């Protein structure tokens, strides 16, 4: 088993798709940090001019409105103050405040990448027919599937955590020189580390599910089709039936919760009181367990099918 696992790790590391994704992730983060560095400013008054312009534009439009329609009330057209707008135009990069949300967004993108890489890792084996060769070396199909899934889950979790850590490091100079590191405490690092771990967990889930579905469909395209059909059509559809009562069991609810996204509508309160947001950091336990059960169920079906179906 250990040899098989080593072989799968070697194969994973040798795959061009993974190498390309790794290079894109590293350079993409660097490019984003550079762009952010260029567009940010340390000046606390940055954005003041834009805010003033915005308010002046609003005032001019308001005067035109009142001149054209004398019956109009001045209260109907209220313009914001410069102070109100200033925060939105502030070009300072507040590291401690911004990075958790940036990390969550990148973790979500890495989840999608994990699904594609996981699907391709198993799908390529069927597509090339090399699964036949492998089975003539190791006929125990359970071992083969287990080695592939373990290699995928561990490596993609690690890769996700590393990319998220690199993201945090790459943006440090942006905060230090083009904004501030105010509020950057040990607690901030714990929050970020928590997001890395959650992102790694989510990537593992995506990879395991993709590997399971690829074992069933025996190709990569099938997984992409199933993922699209479920993620874009079925999951939202299920979320809308029975007054959203199924939503706590669906990906649309559990994936954001696992990442601890802010401003996630609380489904049970949504109907009665409109937009209600979740607390700062949601517990990862329930979504993690739920997603792990889903992944285990799909892998169990994949194994049963792989074990009984002929390889022709």
């Amino acid at each position, binding site marked *: 088993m250990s*040899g098989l696992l*080593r072989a799968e790790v070697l194969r994973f590391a040798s795959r061009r798709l993974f190498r390309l994704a790794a290079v894109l992730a590293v350079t993409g983060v660097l490019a984003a940090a550079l762009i952010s560095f260029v567009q940010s400013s340390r000046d606390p008054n940055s954005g003041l001019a834009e805010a003033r312009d915005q308010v002046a534009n609003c005032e001019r439009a308001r005067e035109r409105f009142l001149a054209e329609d004398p019956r109009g009330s001045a209260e109907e057209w209220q313009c914001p103050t410069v102070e109100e707008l200033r925060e939105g135009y502030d070009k300072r990069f507040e590291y401690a405040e911004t990075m958790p949300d940036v990390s969550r967004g990148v973790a979500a993108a890495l989840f999608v990448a994990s699904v594609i890489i996981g699907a391709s890792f198993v799908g390529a084996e069927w597509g090339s027919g090399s699964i036949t060769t*492998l089975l*003539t070396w190791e*006929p125990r199909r359970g071992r083969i599937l287990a080695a592939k899934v373990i290699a995928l889950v561990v490596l993609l979790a690690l890769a996700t955590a590393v990319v998220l850590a690199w993201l945090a490091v790459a943006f440090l100079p942006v905060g230090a020189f083009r904004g501030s590191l105010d509020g950057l405490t040990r607690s901030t690092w714990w929050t970020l580390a928590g997001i890395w771990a959650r992102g790694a967990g989510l990537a593992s889930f995506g990879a395991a599910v993709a590997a399971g579905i690829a074992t069933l469909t025996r190709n990569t395209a099938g997984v992409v089709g199933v993922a699209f059909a479920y993620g874009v059509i079925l999951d939202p559809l299920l979320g809308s039936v029975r007054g959203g009562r199924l939503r706590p069991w669906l990906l649309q609810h559990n994936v954001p919760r696992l990442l601890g996204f802010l401003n996630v509508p609380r489904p049970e309160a949504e109907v009665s009181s409109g937009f209600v947001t979740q607390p700062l950091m949601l517990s990862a336990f329930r979504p993690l367990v739920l997603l792990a059960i889903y992944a285990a169920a799909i892998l169990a079906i994949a194994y049963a099918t792989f074990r009984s179906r002929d390889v022709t």
Partner: protein
Amino acid sequence: MAVDDLTLEVPTGGVFGFLGPNGSGKTTTIRCLLGLVRPNDGSCTVLGARVPSMLPSVIGKVGSMVETPTFFGGFSGRRNLELLAEASGLPRRVIDPVLERVGLADRSGDRFRTYSLGMKQRLGLASVLMKDPELLILDEPANGLDPSGLKDVRDLLRSLADEGRTVFLSSHLLNEVQLICDSVAILARGRCSAQGPVNEVLAMRGGSAFVVRAPKIQLAKRVLTEAGFRATFRGDRSIRVKASPDRAGRVTRVLADAGIYLTELRPEEISLEAVFLELTGEGP
């Protein structure tokens, strides 16, 4: 049903030819032996181990190649072998000698997808040899090989058999099979038509015969048949006359008495191809 009521017993040591026309069930049989497909009924044993339940216990002694060898196209030949060696705990030092032995050492660093069919077959054979197997199960290993490659593979398989290994060789290249096989089985429509040592199977052709060529071939056949010979057309404007070697003179005389003068009279060479065509019903 691809294979029906097939009973095969492959003797230990030597080269066993497994012959049959396309679609006769050769590859399905091999897939059954390797646990890739499950028979609806019946059983397979490989090196005494029941397939598929006990196959893992002997798989390390079985080198196999099913149809065209399939490896990862984006990896080099060497990388593909390294992955297989890693998967089964073989040391990497086994790779170079087998690449040398199949004549692929120079191109082992190229991507598999750039290989010709012959090179793919060679890499497949290299992967088989890495295990130092007792039993080799090879499905059309000579596909795509040029004449020199064919000879290399023939020599390789013969030398492996001479080392005491068992080579189970599925092929449609009957001349090649006849040159290297010790025993054969002929499969037709999923059933075994003949099985045994090559000379015994050749004898199934039904005794000796002459090839007769003469002008007025239709008349010649009629005259010979009326004289009590079993004469059949061969399809190349000649007649096959079943008769023992000492009756050559009688054949000549019967035809001469009818005013037909031979242009050729020779003993028929019995080939595996002829037996194969007769048994599989694909002959003229």
